[in-house]
């Protein structure tokens, strides 16, 4: 009850970015609490990267404001945050070691070098040209650069896009260790499993607006009761569908029903003469949530 409302580490009010008269980001209000991992989710083109780049201070907004610890962002901001871009490159011909040296000189008080190298598992690749690294190694180097100043707030823009499953899991472990050191992480992703694995709180974006926001579990409980039951459409042929199944949705060859009580629902179905051949029962995922909210697939263009 006596929990004080702490100032969010980062918040936006009415944040808007316009390209060619279209609001790519449309009057966005966000509050990101300190110490959590916050996920911006959405399909390609939802405005995730535009939003995160405005938050990073790289892209000027057309309207609205961004507050860091309750104050407008100034040039000291870069001393306190770490940024990993989605698309980025480093100067040619530099080895991992040289890149670390270069970036360590940008900050007043860089992290202990050996600690950073150990943290991001860079020991074995220090003498490698950064252009010859694998996808996972490169992301670890870029993460090390983002962590160079021991930031309070870390931005990760689609950090695991294009990585193989093993490298993704390794990267997730790193993000968890960042989070466990009390840092705030803000990441964008279009992988729902990534958000479920890492995020304490998510905001689902589509067409520059927040569709819904909250903890992943809470959101799923809010929008889906019990479980999802999927049955082939053919099973319903000739059967009288009971009124409580009016919210059934057809997904391809399957009918999808939300069941609060799985056994009660199945009994009703059997009583109504619906065959249970090909039955699937599953808990809802963020993919389902996204589909329900927008009516379109998340991973499509």
């Amino acid at each position, binding site marked *: 009850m006596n929990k004080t409302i702490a100032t969010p580490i980062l918040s936006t009010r009415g944040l808007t970015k316009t390209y060619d008269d279209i609001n790519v980001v449309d009057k966005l209000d966000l509050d990101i609490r300190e110490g959590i991992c916050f996920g911006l989710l959405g399909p390609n083109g939802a405005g995730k990267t535009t939003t995160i780049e405005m938050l990073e201070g790289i892209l000027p907004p057309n309207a609205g404001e961004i507050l860091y610890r309750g104050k407008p962002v100034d040039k000291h901001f870069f001393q306190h945050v770490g940024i990993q871009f989605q698309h*980025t*490159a480093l100067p040619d*011909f530099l080895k991992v070691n040289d890149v670390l040296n270069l970036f360590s000189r940008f900050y007043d008080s860089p992290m202990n070098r050996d600690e950073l190298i150990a943290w991001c598992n860079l020991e074995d690749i220090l003498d490698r040209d950064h252009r010859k690294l694998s996808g996972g190694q490169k992301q670890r180097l870029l993460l090390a650069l983002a962590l160079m100043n021991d930031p309070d707030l870390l931005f990760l823009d689609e950090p695991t896009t294009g990585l193989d499953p093993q490298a993704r899991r390794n990267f997730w472990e790193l993000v968890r260790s960042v989070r466990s050191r009390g840092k705030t992480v803000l990441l964008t992703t279009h992988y729902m499993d990534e958000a479920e694995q890492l995020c304490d709180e998510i905001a689902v974006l589509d067409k520059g607006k927040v569709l819904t926001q909250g903890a992943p579990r809470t959101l799923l409980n809010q929008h889906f009761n019990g479980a999802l039951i999927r049955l082939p459409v053919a099973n319903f042929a000739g059967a009288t569908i009971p009124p409580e199944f009016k919210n059934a949705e057809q997904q391809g060859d399957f009918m999808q029903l939300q069941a609060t009580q799985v056994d009660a629902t199945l009994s009703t179905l059997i009583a109504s003469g619906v065959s249970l051949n090909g039955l699937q029962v599953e808990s809802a995922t963020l993919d389902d949530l996204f589909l329900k909210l927008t009516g379109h697939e998340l991973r499509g263009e």
Partner: protein
Amino acid sequence: MMFWKRFLGVLTARNLEFWRDKESLSWNLIFPLVLVAAFAFLFDSDDRTIVTVGVVQEIQDEGQLESNNALVPELASLAFVEQVPYENRDQALRRLQQHQLDLVIAPDEQRYWLNESSPGSALAAELLSARSDAYAQEVLTGQALRYVDWVLPGILAMNLMFSCLYGVGYVIVRYRKNSVLKRLQATPLSAFEFLLAQVVSRVWLVLATLIVVYLICNAIFSFVMEGSYLLLILLAFLGALCMAALGLLIAARTRSEELSRGLLDFIAWPMLLLSGVWFSLDGSPDWVQQFAQIFPLTHLLDAARAVMFDGAGFAEILPQIIVLIAMTFVFLVVGARLFRWVGDGR
């Protein structure tokens, strides 16, 4: 303190890049060497068919600078003898020593000079003494100023120009396009620190390259050098600074490698043709010579050749030094104002 730390960080990284890019590095060294050698062999023989005589006299107006075969009446009837007026006797004598003139006559003093090391000079002296015995003979010696001597500063300056324009301008555009600049922007590094490091890194690398190329070429060809090496290095430094600043200006905003390449070519090629890299502009129309004044390369070359061939001192090349510094200042100020990390055309 942080300024220098960040500046040195970028400077070190840029130098490492240049040093490890062995292909560009060797190109930077080999290209001018090959050019100098090619010109030395291609333009070895100097087959002028006329005798050129320098005539020392007071010049009242510009029109008198044209060659005029009536300056020394005794030689006036000889169509194959060209008489060129010189106001400055020392300058005329230096041309004689470098075999650009065959004879120098000072009618007021009733004297003439010949260069013992030049066969053409002996011939011209024979001609004059056959026509008149009113002149007293003075003898000079001096090796010919070969075309390779004359073109050397041109080739070195060309190398400097390309290296600075493209090494600064093109590299910045490439870094903007592939988002290296975006990554650097997301650090406390300031645009000024970044740009200064790019310019300084390129300028000192260019100076080092020029000195190496000069030393190697000089060991082979032993060039004419009448003036001070320190002045020459100062000129190379100012010229490189000016070209690097021009590169910054061109690269201030664009994300397009094609556009920047076009802009750089648009500036580099006219300079290459009209700044007197390959041939002297003395004989070209007035408007061409006037137009060439807008190019920093023209001023750099005028001053460098004055130092190398005429032994000009600091005071004599001060006008060119001032022009180079002024141009550098304008390019830097405008370039820094226009500069964007991310740039246009997003």
